[in-house]
Structure formats: C-alpha cells, structure tokens
C-alpha cells in the first residue's frame, strides 16, 4: 500500500510540476483572496491580528476546493481512470497517494499564505511559528477529506457546484478547530483540545478513505 501511495503521489506531483497550475493559478488566487480579505476589513481592522487566523483558514478552504478540482481533473482525461483500474492498484494506496500529493501541494501553498498572513494581516510571528504544527496537521486532514469528496463528485456534470456544497460543511469543523488552535497559539493559550479534533478528523477521514475509496472507484 505504501509503495502504491508513493507511486501515485509522485505521479500527481510530477503532473503538477509540469503543468504548473498550482504555481500560476492557485497560488495567485490565494494571495489575491488574502489581499481582498484585508481590503474588506479596511485599514482600521486589517492590522488587527485577531482576524488573521480565521481569514487565513477561509482562504485555505477556497484554495482547497480549487486543488481538489484540479486533483480530480488529472484523472478525468479520457481513459485515465480505466487504465489506472486495469493496473490493479490497491485503492487504499491510490487514496493515500492522492491525499499525500494534495497535502504536499497544500503545505506549499499554506506556507506562502501563512507568510502572507504575517505580512498583510499582521499576525504575530512568534505565535504564527507556534501554530505551524497545527496548520500542518489541519491541512493534512483537509487533504484527506478533499480527496474523498473529490472522488465522490468526480465525473458528475455538476462537479464545480457539487464539490463546495458537499465539502464545505464537512470542512467546517476543521476550519473552526484550525482557527482556534492558531488563535490560541497567538495568544499563548492551550492548544490541545483543538488539536484533538483535528487529529480525530484526520484519522477518521484516512480510515474511511482507506476502507471505502475502492467502492468509489468501482466501475
């Protein structure tokens, strides 16, 4: 399973590296959304670091939707899904691989947006550094959930509208837990109660994905 996961992750990341969609489309969108958040708050409030964690995760959610669509689009081109199916790869490995690739892409984008939040939204650097591990885990959970929801909506005519409708409510607890752990890190509070939610969500999504991804890919 691990071998298959690494193969699939390497394939997805290689496709991303060659197409550079992440670099030229997703990252600029995320940076623009972060700047717009600052503009929407206005100069009097944009420097108020208490809004930073929430806005950071809001932008992350928008970016995740784009990335999940992108991750599924790779599989959508004619014959890809069937040719992958004929290889007889373990579906659990495929799920883990796609989640890992999405997580790596999210970590890279999240790092840039984290820097943006420090610069534009004035979140305190020390607190933001303390929050980094929780951000890494939250983005991992979002990647696992996103891969599952992407597979659920993939191939449908209405994927573009269906994915946000299904995924955003499911992402909400992660958004809340991630935002609270980031805020707690900024204010020097205890992180653990929010960490628990994120870790449980990560384990739950990975568990469901490992068990049921094969069912979604059945032809």
């Amino acid at each position, binding site marked *: 399973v691990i071998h298959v996961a690494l193969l699939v992750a390497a394939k997805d990341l290689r496709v991303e590296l060659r197409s550079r969609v992440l670099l030229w489309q997703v990252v600029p969108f995320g940076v623009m959304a972060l700047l717009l958040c600052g503009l929407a708050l206005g100069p009097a409030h944009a420097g108020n670091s208490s809004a930073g964690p929430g806005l950071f995760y809001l932008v992350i959610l928008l970016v995740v939707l784009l990335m999940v669509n992108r991750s599924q689009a790779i599989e959508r081109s004619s014959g890809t899904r069937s040719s992958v199916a004929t290889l007889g790869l373990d579906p659990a490995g495929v799920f883990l691989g796609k989640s890992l690739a999405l997580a790596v892409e999210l970590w890279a984008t999240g790092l840039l947006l984290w820097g943006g939040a420090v610069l534009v939204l004035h979140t305190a650097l020390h607190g933001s550094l303390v929050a980094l591990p929780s951000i890494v885990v939250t983005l991992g959970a979002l990647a696992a959930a996103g891969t*599952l*929801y992407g597979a*659920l*909506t993939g191939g*449908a*005519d*209405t994927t573009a509208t*269906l994915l946000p*409708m*299904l995924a955003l*409510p*499911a992402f*909400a*607890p992660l958004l809340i837990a991630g935002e609270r752990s980031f805020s707690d890190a900024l204010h020097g509070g205890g992180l653990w109660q929010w960490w628990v939610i994120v870790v449980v*969500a990560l384990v*739950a999504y990975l568990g*469901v994905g490992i068990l*049921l991804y094969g*069912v*979604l890919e*059945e032809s």
Partner: protein
Amino acid sequence: MMKQFSQRLLGPVTLVLLALTIWLGLWVTPPDKIQGQLARLVYVHPSVAWVALYVSFGTATIASALYLWRRTRSMTMDRIAHCAMEVSVVFILLTLITGSIWGRPTWGVWWAWDARLTSTAIMAVLELGYLALRRANDDPMLRARRSAVFAILAAINVPIIHFSVDWWKTLHQGATVFTANRTLLIHGIQAWTLLISFVGFTLLFFWFLRARYRLEVRRESQSQVQLDEALLARQREGAVP
C-alpha cells in the same frame, strides 16, 4: 404481524399518539414556573430532533452501510437510505425551526452561533448535499455507491452534535430528559407526554418512510415502463421501410 401493523395500524396509531401529545402538551400539562407556556415546545422539539438525527439519519446510515457491504448490497438498501434521508431533511428543518421559535423569546435572537445550533445546521446542509449528490448522478449503481459513502461520511457529524453541549460552553441547554448519570430530570404527566411524543414522532417517521418508499418503487417502475415504450417506439421507427 409486523407487515399487517405497518399496512393498517401504523397511520392511525401515529395520528392518535400525536393527537394525544397535542392534547396533553397544550391542555393537561402545567406551564413552567420560569418559562411559562413556552416550555410546551419541549414536547415537540426534542422528539423531532431525536427523529431527525438518530432515527431517520441512523436508518439512512445503516442502510448505506448495508448497501456497501457486498453480502447485503441491494437497491432496496439504497432506496431505504434515500427515502430515510429525505424524511430526515424534513425533520431536521423542523428541529431548526422549532428551536428558533424557542430561541427568540428565550435568548432574544432567532439564531445564535451556538455549537449545537451550528452543528445541526451543518447537518441540514450535509443532508441537502446528499440529495443533490443523488440528482447529479444518472447511473443508479454509481449514484447508490457515492451516496452511501457520503452518508457514512456525514455520520461523523452526529457525535459532534450529540456531545456539542458537553464539549463546548453553549447557550443550548444540556441533557433535558436524563442527566449524565441517567437520573430522570422530568416527572409525572410531563414525562409521559414527552414519552408519547417521542413514540408518536418515531412512528410518524416510519409512516413517512413507508409511504415514500412505495412512491419510489412506483416511480422507478414507471420510469422503466417509459424506457421500454421509448425503446419499442425507436424499434418501430427503424422497422418502417
């Protein structure tokens, strides 16, 4: 025996129990010392929420799990899951509406960003998403598989809703009927009214489910007849010299 009950008695028994709930809830039980007449919503709101979250959504989740398990996989399970989820949407919206009616005079607002309310609203959106997902897929097998997986994913939200009043400091009150150590918090005629309400609304769910299931079976057979007729018409067109 069960079949006979569901065919003949389910509807009348449900109506009698709900009528009894209304009579006991509005006329027989006394008003609350602090909340006055407003407390009568307790005979509706918890029962509706019970059906929405545990009975109907639970039925949908179990049927979905049974569909995914190869040994029990059948379109009957998919139909049950679909119909139960539709009924659950009705009940969860009723839960939010009755809660809101209670919240306005008590908290001063129709809606509060409370953990229980927010997680229930998320559940309502997830259930609507389930129905949207079903409409987005034409292939019955693909639709059944995807919606079954989605129902199981959505079930992750149920324990969050259930324990939200314990995990977070919320406006929403904690357990109404039992305390954490299973001590009854409500007594006498009020307890009986609440029990009748719970049974009545649970039976109402099964009545709705049965009716919706039968409708779905008829709709599917009608679609099949229409498809057969269309194919036959095409064949005739092809046969014309």
